[in-house]
């Protein structure tokens, strides 16, 4: 019987602390005896490798038999019906073009990618290159722990094309984000060329109903309210969206001049350079009043908080939604559903609300800069010689030729240029038995993110005409991510303090803001709500962020 107790105790202990298992794995790893990332990095290229002068471009394919391993999350991966990278035209073609063989590694399909990434660093054998969403904070730790190479001295010499891109004055904001606060470069970043590639969600509206009701396309929130009322009255339809984060409220906020979501605490920078959260902006109250009013009048779908994508599609099909906020892909599906059903529904993209016609919209859910947040870092288990090869291999994607190859594959095979010089996919891609999406995976490397520039032309070639016009409507005259706070690099102590204060604040905001929307508490409570935020330590959080933001902008 005693053993039973022991077993029970351990079962409980284990159940309670799911993370301990992870901790145990961490115990095995032996320490790297040296810390080449920071020490050897002082004098790179002085031992017979300096045959390439600064900025000198080399010709591809390189004459090398080096094989490098690359852990690429579950991106740059193989199409579903391709088993090995040797069979994948993109991956095997890349070897021919660069001369470097890559041992591709991906997180096991269906596994928790974040966990796989964390465990990667615990492993004794690291891949040469790692591609993941690596914040500058984390990069600092990885550098300090001697796990990744400091690339500051190497980039100009061995990745001249990437270096040139970073130092282009037009890419000043991106350079700042790709660099640690002390000027260290740790990665080859991943970029989306323009707003077009970043815009992924927005509202669509029933144009046929607008015409039936003799209404114009709504511009201001007042217009939106009128349209929604008319839809409610005539068709018993409302504004529908999904996901627990009320992403749609970002768009509604835009119509009041505020920026950010109603119920998510997100840092923004106001016009005077102050770090704020939407909840303390004066416009927030106006936004909440509107949301509460719409909720009360039944203009917003009450299931929006628990809706799934499919539920929204259903509602659109059942004609109980007149405006839908969703990802471009879902909007496309909704349009196709309507066509298949033949109910005469005509969905078109509508611009986010503005404070007045001609004013810019503030929210389209984009990042602060064109960096995607993903980076390729090179681990210190890579020799200096291999490091140089790795950088040259990565740099290929930043050459003119390499950029086209990563984005579109080979001309004449997977794409052709039309009269305007714009790339168009060939039948090989669009006619893929598994669909164009899988077809693209066979011939190009930027289907998700990669350490290259994803060109706007890529997005344009991929999008159907409908999605293309929607996207262009959404990004029309917008401030984009101008008010977003870039990702800052906090010191360990400040980060700890920030996380400790921030978790309860975000909980409080998401809880109380929704209560105001659903009418459980009156909107007049906003002032008390904001006071409570300061009681929870909001000022300290903002001060921390402000301090780092100011330093960041001085860089």
């Amino acid at each position, binding site marked *: 019987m005693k053993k039973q107790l022991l077993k029970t105790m351990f079962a409980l202990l284990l159940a309670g602390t799911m993370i*301990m298992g992870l901790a145990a794995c961490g115990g095995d790893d032996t320490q790297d005896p040296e810390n080449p990332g920071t020490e050897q990095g002082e004098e790179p290229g002085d031992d017979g490798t300096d045959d390439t002068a600064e900025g000198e471009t080399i010709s591809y394919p390189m004459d090398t038999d080096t094989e490098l391993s690359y852990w690429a999350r579950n991106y740059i991966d193989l199409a579903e019906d391709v088993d090995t990278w040797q069979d994948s035209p993109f991956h095997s073609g890349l070897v021919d073009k660069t001369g470097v063989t890559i041992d591709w590694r991906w997180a096991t399909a269906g596994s928790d990618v974040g966990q796989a990434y*964390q465990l990667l660093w615990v492993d004794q054998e690291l891949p040469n290159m790692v591609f993941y969403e690596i914040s500058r904070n984390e990069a600092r730790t990885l550098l300090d722990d001697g796990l990744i190479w400091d690339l500051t001295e190497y980039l100009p010499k061995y990745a001249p094309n990437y270096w040139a891109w970073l130092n282009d004055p037009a890419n000043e904001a991106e350079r700042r984000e790709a660099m640690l606060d002390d000027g260290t470069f740790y990665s080859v970043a991943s970029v989306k060329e323009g707003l077009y590639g970043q815009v992924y969600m927005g509202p669509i509206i029933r144009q046929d109903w607008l015409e039936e009701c003799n209404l114009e396309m709504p511009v201001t929130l007042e217009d939106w309210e009128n349209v929604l009322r008319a839809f409610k009255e005539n068709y018993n339809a409302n504004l529908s969206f999904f996901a*627990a984060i009320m992403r749609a409220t970002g768009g509604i906020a835009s119509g009041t001049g505020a920026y950010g979501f109603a119920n998510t605490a997100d840092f923004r920078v106001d016009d005077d350079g102050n770090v704020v959260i939407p909840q303390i902006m004066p416009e927030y109250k106006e936004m909440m009043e509107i949301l509460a009013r719409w909720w009360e009048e039944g203009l917003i779908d009450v299931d929006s908080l628990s809706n799934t994508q499919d539920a929204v599609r259903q509602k659109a099909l059942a004609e109980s939604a007149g405006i839908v906020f969703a990802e471009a892909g879902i909007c496309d599906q909704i349009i196709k559903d309507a066509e298949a059903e033949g109910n005469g529904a005509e969905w078109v993209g509508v611009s986010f609300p503005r404070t007045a016609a001609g004013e810019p919209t503030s929210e389209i859910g984009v990042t602060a800069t064109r960096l995607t947040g993903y980076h390729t870092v090179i681990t210190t288990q890579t020799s200096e010689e291999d490091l140089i090869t790795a950088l040259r291999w990565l740099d290929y994607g930043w050459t003119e030729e390499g950029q086209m190859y990563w984005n579109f594959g080979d001309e004449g095979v997977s794409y052709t240029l039309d009269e305007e010089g714009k790339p168009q996919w060939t039948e090989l891609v669009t006619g893929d038995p598994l669909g164009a999406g899988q077809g693209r995976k066979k011939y190009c490397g930027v289907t998700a993110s990669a350490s290259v520039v994803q060109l706007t032309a890529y997005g344009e070639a991929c999008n159907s005409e409908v999605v293309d016009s929607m996207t262009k409507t959404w990004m029309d005259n917008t401030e984009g991510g101008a008010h977003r706070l870039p990702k800052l690099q906090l010191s360990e102590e400040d980060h700890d303090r920030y996380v400790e204060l921030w*978790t309860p604040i975000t909980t409080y905001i998401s809880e109380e803001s929704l209560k105001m929307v659903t009418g459980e508490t009156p909107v007049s409570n906003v002032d008390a709500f904001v006071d409570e935020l300061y009681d929870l330590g909001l000022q300290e959080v903002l001060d921390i962020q402000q301090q780092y933001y100011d330093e960041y902008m001085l860089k």
Partner: protein
Amino acid sequence: MNDKNKRRQAVSVKAEGRRAQGRGSYLARDFKRNKLKYLMVIPILILLFLFCYRPMYGILIAFKRYRPALGVWDSPWVGFQYFEQFFRDPYCWRLFRNTLSISGLSLLFGFPAPILLALLLNEVRSRKFKKVVQTVSYMPHFISTVVVCGMITTFCASDGLFNNIIAAFGGTKSNLLLNKDLFYPIYIISDIWKGIGWDSIIYLAALSGIDQEQYEAAKIDGANRLQQIFHITLPGILPTVSMLLILRIGSLLSVGYEKIILLYQPTTYEVADVISSYVYRRGLMGGEFSYGTAVGLFNSIVSIILLLTANKVSKKMGQSGLF
């Protein structure tokens, strides 16, 4: 059961005698006699060691700022920093209250449910009917939590099944999952629905161990059906019930986060946010291994105390304990 007890007593009397000769020699002799049995135990012991004992030193990271690259040993010590953070948190008390409310209510309503089902099934005469009911009631156990929660969300939506029923009786439609008063009923009823059949298996097994002669004797003494249940069936399965109850009390603080996260909404945080879901949300802000471990460790300690207390109380009340 009675036979077994007698045998056990006999064994323990013999053992007592041997113990006088010294524990060591007894073990040695027992080992010689049952060599093969000991051999058979070895794989289990290794398994237990590898997966239960060996990972335990990982608890250390609750007191350290864990950095994967440095490993458990070399991460810097921070003392009770993460525990203090948890107790300083303005939501700490609410998380406790919700965790205890949810598991307490589950215990109150969810624990007797499979016993009742087992008792009812035991009284059923038709074997076929019994088998069908058993099979049907097991089924939900095999549906994944994610799917169950998906069904609940759909049923509770404003145009879902439950609202259609409510509307048919003249009520107004609303999204039931947004209503914080309904969260506990939804959570617990769906839990019972999912687990009742599976959990009743162990009771049915215990029921089949009751000596049939006792029922015959009771019938001759003129006991009716209900009296038989109260005086023979229930006492017969009481040791099983008390053991499972003790175990259940031991896990009062560990409410799984999956179902909560799939069902709660910010509007129901007030009643639905539990320790594990809060730690999960915080974990999202970056691999907070140490914080999660600290809270988990604290959880485990309280759980063990609860378990020991329940065991003691059960023994005091004359029931068999776990040990």
